[in-house]
């Protein structure tokens, strides 16, 4: 229902508030208008003529002040035009200054690119080899039986076991319920020749690996094309199949259309059922990762009289499993050791009777397998950390050089700084600009350093994996590497930006500006280029 009195008084209250530069909420305006409308109505009820009733009510409004009712809004004519925020303005000024000194800027950027680039390159390798997990699902739940990578099958007792027979793998797979899934992988990676069946092209040399059918599901890897091996491929007599690695598929020209087509691998015709995802190089980092994965059921077909599949005494398989979420590695390790000893107590599973006395000394260690690089970690850990320390030292030297450069530049700019002070700039503004220049330089240097890091780490990896068909280490900067580089860049900027301001003040000859700011000119270098952000001293 429209209430003309309310509308009238609401309008007057709002206008009145506007005149007092007060912004009142709609609620408050409504309440005040309601009060005035009530007052007017009450006067009318008492028989007071309408004009007089309105005049009296208006007097109530005019006698009031809204100062206590709402926050004071800024008057439009007092509003200052929007200006760039402090940091943005400093960065813009710093950019302009750096552009005016192309020689200095280029030298500083090159120094930073090398320093940050070397450090970031080393961190890329440290991250890829020592810190990163395999590109598999829930890598933290993957565990490997045994902490060693051994080259060759063995029939002797191993003490701490790392390679196992196929029957023992079946024992673990079927009778240790703590594992969600358990996979086995051949220790040997046989060289194989591959060509398309019926094709006229010459066969190409690749590396193969026999794995259990549940290998990919245990690791939690999805195909990039077709399908991966599964347990049906494990059956003896199952159709012969193979999965290509992404790198091998690129090298051999096997695209999606090749999936489902026959391939001849070392004289055996198999069907290419799928292609692994890019970046997946198997369960361990090695210089020659497998190109084709084939089910263990095919091992007798390929190895013929040298087949180890049915041998109960030969250890030739690595075993890795995915623990169920609530299982502890220590408890499962004890179960595995017990299972191994029981297995070895059976006469058919030992080659020598003399070993029987040592069965109770045989153990299995369960080690995290998510990083997939235990062997590589052992080989490269010390060297990589040493290189990281060396590159960090290079970066520190670069910081010292840059600090010197900035100091020299400050000395050269003392006249212009004196002018700026004379024009009204504060010492703090000049200090901030110096820091902004350091920040800009370090960020730009960090970006260049990142590109340098990609090149350096690629060269190092190619040298370390000389002759490798596919390098299992990504040199492209990952998110942790990007964060690391950004952090290093900012730290570098803070270091060399603060360096000049930490040095001793230098005596600067008097400038021609002998007025109120002239003496400040003397303090320019001692404040901006030397110590702290204190106010300039005035000479007496």
């Amino acid at each position: 229902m429209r209430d003309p009195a309310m509308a009238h008084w609401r309008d007057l209250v709002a206008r009145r508030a506007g005149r007092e530069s007060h912004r009142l909420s709609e609620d408050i305006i409504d309440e005040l208008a309601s009060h005035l409308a009530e007052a007017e109505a009450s006067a009318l009820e008492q028989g007071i003529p309408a004009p007089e009733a309105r005049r009296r009510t208006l007097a109530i409004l005019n006698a009031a002040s809204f100062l206590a009712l709402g926050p004071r809004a800024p008057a439009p004519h007092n509003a200052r035009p929007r200006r760039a925020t402090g940091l943005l303005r400093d960065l813009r000024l710093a950019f302009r200054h750096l552009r005016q000194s192309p020689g200095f800027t280029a030298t500083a950027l090159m120094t930073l690119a090398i320093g940050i680039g070397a450090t970031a390159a080393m961190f890329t390798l440290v991250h890829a080899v020592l810190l990163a997990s395999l590109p598999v699902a829930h890598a933290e739940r993957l565990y490997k039986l045994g902490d060693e990578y051994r080259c060759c099958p063995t029939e002797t007792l191993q003490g701490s076991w790392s390679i196992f027979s196929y029957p023992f793998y079946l024992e673990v797979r079927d009778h240790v319920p703590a594992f969600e899934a358990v996979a086995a992988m051949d220790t040997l990676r046989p060289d194989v020749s591959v060509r398309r069946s019926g094709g006229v092209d010459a066969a190409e040399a690749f590396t193969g690996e026999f794995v259990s059918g549940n290998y990919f599901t245990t690791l939690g890897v999805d195909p990039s094309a077709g399908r991966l091996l599964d347990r049906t491929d494990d059956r003896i007599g199952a159709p012969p199949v193979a999965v290509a690695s992404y790198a091998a598929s690129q090298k051999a020209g096997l695209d999606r259309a090749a999936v489902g087509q026959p391939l001849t691998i070392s004289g055996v015709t198999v069907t290419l059922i799928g292609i692994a995802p890019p970046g997946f190089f198997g369960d361990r980092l090695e210089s020659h990762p497998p190109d084709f994965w084939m089910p263990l059921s095919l091992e007798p077909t390929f190895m013929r009289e040298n087949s180890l599949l049915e041998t109960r005494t030969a250890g030739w398989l690595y075993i890795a499993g995915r623990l169920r979420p609530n299982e502890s590695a220590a408890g499962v390790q004890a179960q595995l050791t017990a299972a191994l000893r029981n297995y070895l107590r059976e006469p058919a599973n030992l080659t020598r009777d003399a070993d029987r006395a040592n069965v109770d000394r045989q153990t299995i260690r369960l080690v995290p397998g998510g990083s997939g690089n235990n062997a590589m970690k052992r080989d490269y850990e010390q060297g990589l950390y040493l290189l990281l320390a060396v590159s960090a030292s290079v970066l520190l030297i670069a910081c010292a050089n840059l600090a010197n450069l900035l100091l020299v530049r400050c000395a050269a700019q003392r006249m212009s700084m004196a002018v700026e002070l004379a024009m009204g700039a504060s010492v703090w503004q000049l200090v901030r600009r110096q820091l902004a220049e350091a920040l800009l330089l370090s960020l730009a240097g960090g970006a260049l350093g990142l590109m340098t890091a990609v090149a350096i780490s690629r060269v190092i990896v190619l040298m370390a994996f000389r002759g490798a068909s596919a390098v299992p280490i990504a040199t492209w900067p990952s998110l942790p590497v990007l964060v690391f580089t950004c952090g290093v860049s900012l730290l570098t900027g803070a270091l060399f930006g603060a360096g000049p301001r930490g040095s001793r003040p230098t005596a600067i000859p008097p400038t021609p500006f002998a007025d109120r700011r002239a003496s400040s000119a003397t303090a320019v270098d001692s404040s901006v280029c030397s110590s702290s952000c204190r106010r300039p001293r005035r000479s007496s």
Partner: protein
Amino acid sequence: MELSSPLREAKKGTAELVVLALLEDVSRHGYELTKLIEDRSAGALTYNFASLYATLYKLEKRKWIHGRWVEKPGQRRRRYYSLTAQGRDVLATQRREWRQFFAVISDLAGVRYA
């Protein structure tokens, strides 16, 4: 009745007590409070209407009173205020303090109720 200058000054400190006391038993809207104060004091005590609302908002912010809009048939929308439990405690305290104050003034200045 006109208030002399010293009492006009003293009146400023009474607004909170008066508003809390008038809301003790029944919810009231702003205009009703103004009229009640004027009538019961026979015109001796009046508050500028903006000051009254400033007091109401201040008390509401302190959670001593609670305001809510009420719309009744045939009437315009009004905001009614009522005393909260906290406001009731404050009122009791203020009453006690004012009583003590009057007792002191009585002793010192010989002011007695008629």
